């Protein structure tokens, strides 16, 4: 059985900007890094081609700037995580030390994948996003507190309102974000549906088609 989970309520740390609308999962983790049967090799590979030239030299991305080193929170744009459903994207982010992503909006599949591995994705308004990014430019080493109980992101001076659908928020706060345990409870009803709902069945007679 999966290990007992801890609630996720508060994340404290530095933040790093990854700006731009439609930050797709190919950019978060290029396809060549998917050629593996585990997620183990993804550590440190997030946004690889955004950060490095083909000869391995740095492009000077904020992630690699000394003032953002060890950031716990990514600040993204609109439709963050769009494109491929690859869970390698949130896995690469989480395994690189990031513990939450704040953005204007998230692609559905990315949001679900992140929730399932305990990486909260929370939304802020476009105006607040501009303000947060401005602060990151002038004071990149600011320590932020992201609180899922109060739904606020604060730098100690200003508190920005955070948004997240009620269900995943509840799952984080109660330590139920890894769903498989919850899903194993309704066995009788699942088996009833398995019996009543048709499954695709191979029909040898038609195979000659």
């Amino acid at each position: 059985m999966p290990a007992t989970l801890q609630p996720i309520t508060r994340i404290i740390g530095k933040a790093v900007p990854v700006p731009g609308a439609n930050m797709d999962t190919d950019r978060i983790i290029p396809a060549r890094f998917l050629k593996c049967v585990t997620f183990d090799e993804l550590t440190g590979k997030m946004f690889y081609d955004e950060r490095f030239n083909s000869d391995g030299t740095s492009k000077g991305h904020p992630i690699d700037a000394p003032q953002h080193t060890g950031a716990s929170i990514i600040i993204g744009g609109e439709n963050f995580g769009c494109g491929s459903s690859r869970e390698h994207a949130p896995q690469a982010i989480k395994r690189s030390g990031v513990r939450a992503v704040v953005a204007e909006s998230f692609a559905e599949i990315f949001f679900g994948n992140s929730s399932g591995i305990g990486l909260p994705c929370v939304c802020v308004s476009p105006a607040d996003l501009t303000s947060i990014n401005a602060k990151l430019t002038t004071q990149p080493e600011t320590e932020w507190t992201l609180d899922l109980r109060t739904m606020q992101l604060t730098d100690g001076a200003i508190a920005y309102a955070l948004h997240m659908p009620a269900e995943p928020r509840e799952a984080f706060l109660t330590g139920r974000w890894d769903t498989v345990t919850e899903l194993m409870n309704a066995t009788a009803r699942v088996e009833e549906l398995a019996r009543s709902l048709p499954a695709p069945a191979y029909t040898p007679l038609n195979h000659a088609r």
Partner: protein
Amino acid sequence: MGKTLFQKVWEAHTVGLLPDGRTQLFIATHFVHEVTSPQAFAMLRESGLPVLHPERTFATVDHIIPTDDQREPFADERAQKMISALRRNCRESGIRFFDLPSGQQGIVHMIGPELGISQPGMTIVCGDSHTATHGALGAIAMGIGSTQVRDVLATQTLALSPLKVRQVRVEGLLRPGVSAKDVALHIINLLGAQGGLGYAYEFAGSAIERMDMDGRLTLCNLAIEGAARCGYVNPDETTFAYLKGRPYAPQGADWDAAVARWRSFASDADATYDDIVRINAADIEPTVTWGISPDMSVGISAPLPELTQAKNDEQRRAWQTAYDYMKFAPGESMQGKKVDVVFIGSCTNGRIQDFRTVAPLLRGRHVAAGVRALAVPGSQMTAKLCEEEGIASIFRSAGFEWRLPGCSMCLAMNPDKLTGDQLCASTSNRNFKGRQGSPAGRTLLMSPLMAAAAAITGCVSNPHQVFPNTQL
């Protein structure tokens, strides 16, 4: 009050509500492939959990498969390791695997419909965003991640929240030479790459009703590129005719009962929608993307947009980034842009009708000098039909590389990759930076027809000018 197909299928598959408020949804059909499933099987093993309903999961190998030489061991050791892991996982769990020698291997979103596994009224998931494709059969079909693949394998259910439903009505006659691909790119341009967040798209209207199943599959495939997690078309006579006689479809007395049941899932005439968008089919031109997001597209005769036309600063910055990356400038025409590579294939446009449409136009013509043209049928069944119908030989004679089935240059997880900043006329689904395997590679999304025109002329062209005397 009437219900939409989405609501009906959702209700029929609801197990119950979870403590956090999400729905526990029964999954009728599950597909797995080699990239996103090994982690899920590993998680199962770690937890000591078996696959609960192996008869409802179907496997294929598509992303990493070479398309020139598929003899094993593959030259790429990592690719070999992935197919071997899938083989072992399927064998140990009793899951049917459409392996290379089966004659039924192919891109997962090709074989589900082709084999008749994907059926109306089902919930269908796969660890792959283009699972939206299967919605063309009248199903709720969506992409999931590997942890959710584990959930389905272990419990045959998922924790999900329902989507809103937006009906996208395309009314009237499509112009000649305008395909489902153009319709999809037009819709994504109109509503934005993020426009479908929180929605399922119901594609409806007379233009969709007239569309054949392969066209509907292309359209639903691209729903995710407009941020709609799933897209669907209500099941109708076209759907039933498509499914009849396919290996995994019901037959005999079961067939009539199935059709009656399938019909009942179609949205009611008095269903209410969260949003309705109306599009005039005649407004849609052959469409091509020019940027790095699928919503950055223009009709073939239109100039590239000026930065002043952007709706806000964010879009202006995104367009500037795209222009810099693509090495294009506002006001330019896409027509005449010299291409290096042409790729016809993928789960978007690697179907039999795509090749049937293009083949007659290639007869007696040849790929332009300096252009590398790849044709990659999406499945072994499609490849076989193309050989039988003489389509493959037409492509070969025209100078195309006629390759073996797989995802190929859509995402370049196999050896088929762009190099440097090559410009590729591609029938695939994503023009993201680096998508086709070179970090500086440039992708132009278009229909098979426009890709064929590009192959012949060596540059982006209006298919009507390249194939003037043909009834497109």
